[in-house]
């Protein structure tokens, strides 16, 4: 569990080309408060890599940088060897057609049925006949175990089912990379296990690369090949699940054990308590 470790070294044998690379990436929503400070990250093809950290540490910002929704203020973001910030609109959209993204609460189109949600990208980006689109949609739904929900509306689905439908939508165009933004948030234990299993199985079966942004440490350790821990905009630890389990790093320990105090303090910075309460020595 060191900063020199790399996900490709730890992962099983396979193609060595990197699906995603972040080199010295710095980003802030305003100039005074950088959210990310010099992030270096390598995500080889075919791996499931988790980016973990507390709320507001910049995990989702990393996904937005990979997807080209944000541009780094410094550093490079490469997807499939292409520099994302340098892509023009057409090239960016061409790249996004090879990326699937699962949003935190699914982001299903509420005015469309489950079937039409999954058919959406197929209809937008291909000229496939309706019969073929129907078969493809049913295959994707079957892969997530929800073929029977095709004619339901998103409002009729449970949170876990909506997440699985969104996953089917994310893989509709057979992407090379799938980005998961908090896929386990707010799920019951059964749905959580199902979604975790699907992420791993779909990754291996379809030969894709998965980047999972999450703070669910136990579920992640079961399914990922490699983990990055982000805190205050920096990568402060990284390693395989085995290395994380064995790590003595105080931050990793606090995160894995769920301790309320540690390197991430319980108290938000504030003036001395006694001073605030106007308690004076007598």
């Amino acid at each position, binding site marked *: 569990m060191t900063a020199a470790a790399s996900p490709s070294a730890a992962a099983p044998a396979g193609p060595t080309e990197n699906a995603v690379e972040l080199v010295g990436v710095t980003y802030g929503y305003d100039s005074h408060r950088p959210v990310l400070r010099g992030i270096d990250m390598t995500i080889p093809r075919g791996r499931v890599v988790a980016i973990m950290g507390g709320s507001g540490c910049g995990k989702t910002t990393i996904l937005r940088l990979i*997807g080209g*929704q944000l541009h780094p203020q410094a550093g490079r973001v490469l997807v499939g060897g292409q520099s994302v910030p340098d892509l023009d609109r057409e090239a960016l*959209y*061409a790249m*996004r*057609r090879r*990326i699937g*993204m699962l*949003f*935190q*609460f699914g*982001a*299903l*189109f*509420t005015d469309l049925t489950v079937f039409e949600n999954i058919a*959406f*990208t197929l209809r*937008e*980006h291909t000229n496939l006949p309706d019969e073929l689109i129907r078969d493809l949609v049913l295959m994707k739904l079957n892969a997530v175990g929800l073929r029977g929900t095709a004619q339901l509306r998103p409002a009729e689905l449970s949170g876990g089912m909506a997440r699985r439908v969104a996953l089917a939508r994310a893989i509709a165009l057979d992407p090379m990379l799938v980005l998961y933004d908090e896929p386990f948030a707010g799920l019951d234990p059964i749905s959580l296990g199902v979604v975790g299993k699907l992420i791993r199985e779909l990754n291996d079966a379809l030969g894709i690369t998965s980047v999972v942004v999450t703070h669910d440490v136990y579920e992640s350790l079961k399914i990922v090949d490699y983990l990055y821990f982000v805190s205050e905009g920096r990568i402060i630890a990284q390693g395989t699940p085995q290395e994380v389990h064995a790590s003595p790093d105080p931050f990793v320990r606090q995160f894995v054990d769920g301790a309320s105090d540690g390197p991430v303090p319980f108290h938000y910075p504030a003036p001395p308590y006694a001073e605030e309460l106007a308690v004076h020595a007598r």
Partner: protein
Amino acid sequence: MPAEAVFNGLRRVGAGAINAVSRLGFAARFFAVVLIHSPAALRRTRLTLREIYFAGVLSLVIIMVSGLFVGMVLGLQGYDTLNKYGAGDSLGIFVGLSLVRELGPVVAGLLFASRAGSAITAEIGLMKTTEQLAAMEMMAVDPLARIVAPRFWGGVISMPLLAALFSVMGVFGAYLVGVRLIGLDNGAFWGNMRAAIDFWPDVTNGIVKSVVFGIAVSLIAVFEGYDAMPTAEGVSSATTRTVVEASLAILALDFILTVFMFRGMGG
């Protein structure tokens, strides 16, 4: 201390002005981008027809009922006043001109802003809040082309049709009151109206107004939805802003257009 308060006040006014100008600039760029995407959106007729249904067809009830009642009230009030001067037979002219030139486009525009404009803003704002627009972007589908442009054109196409329907229902309401209830001569009511109202300029001016109002209301509605803060409060404020801004825009544009139309007619 007073100097500091003055500076702070000036700073707030300045910040407000800069924000307003920058928002106006953003709205202008937004309009230009929507127009650029419009040909592609209009070619996908199913999308635009769907929005005409939501903005236009679903507004039919409120437009028709309001038109009928406005016409009936105009009939009663107009007859009462005209009859004092022995001109009760001119009720058809009075009601027809009022509705076609002015009340049809303006009242239909205000109702359209409240019914369809607010719905468009709320729908786009909620799509933004629930990350549906971001999801679309990540699927390499431009929300301005797929979501905004069809809604804009759905509103622009619906508005003149609704205004025309409002005027028709208004005239019918005045007919019910004037001819059926009060007992005016049927031939005089319709004959005077036909003789006094010309297609050019009366009807065309009304159509021009309703088209301009349709563009203004639809643009404000889609812009406010797209620019809404992605929170429940943000969507609520955006919806309110749509109704207020669209209503004020209709009234201001109505005055400006009327000035030009009267000058054009040599009035």
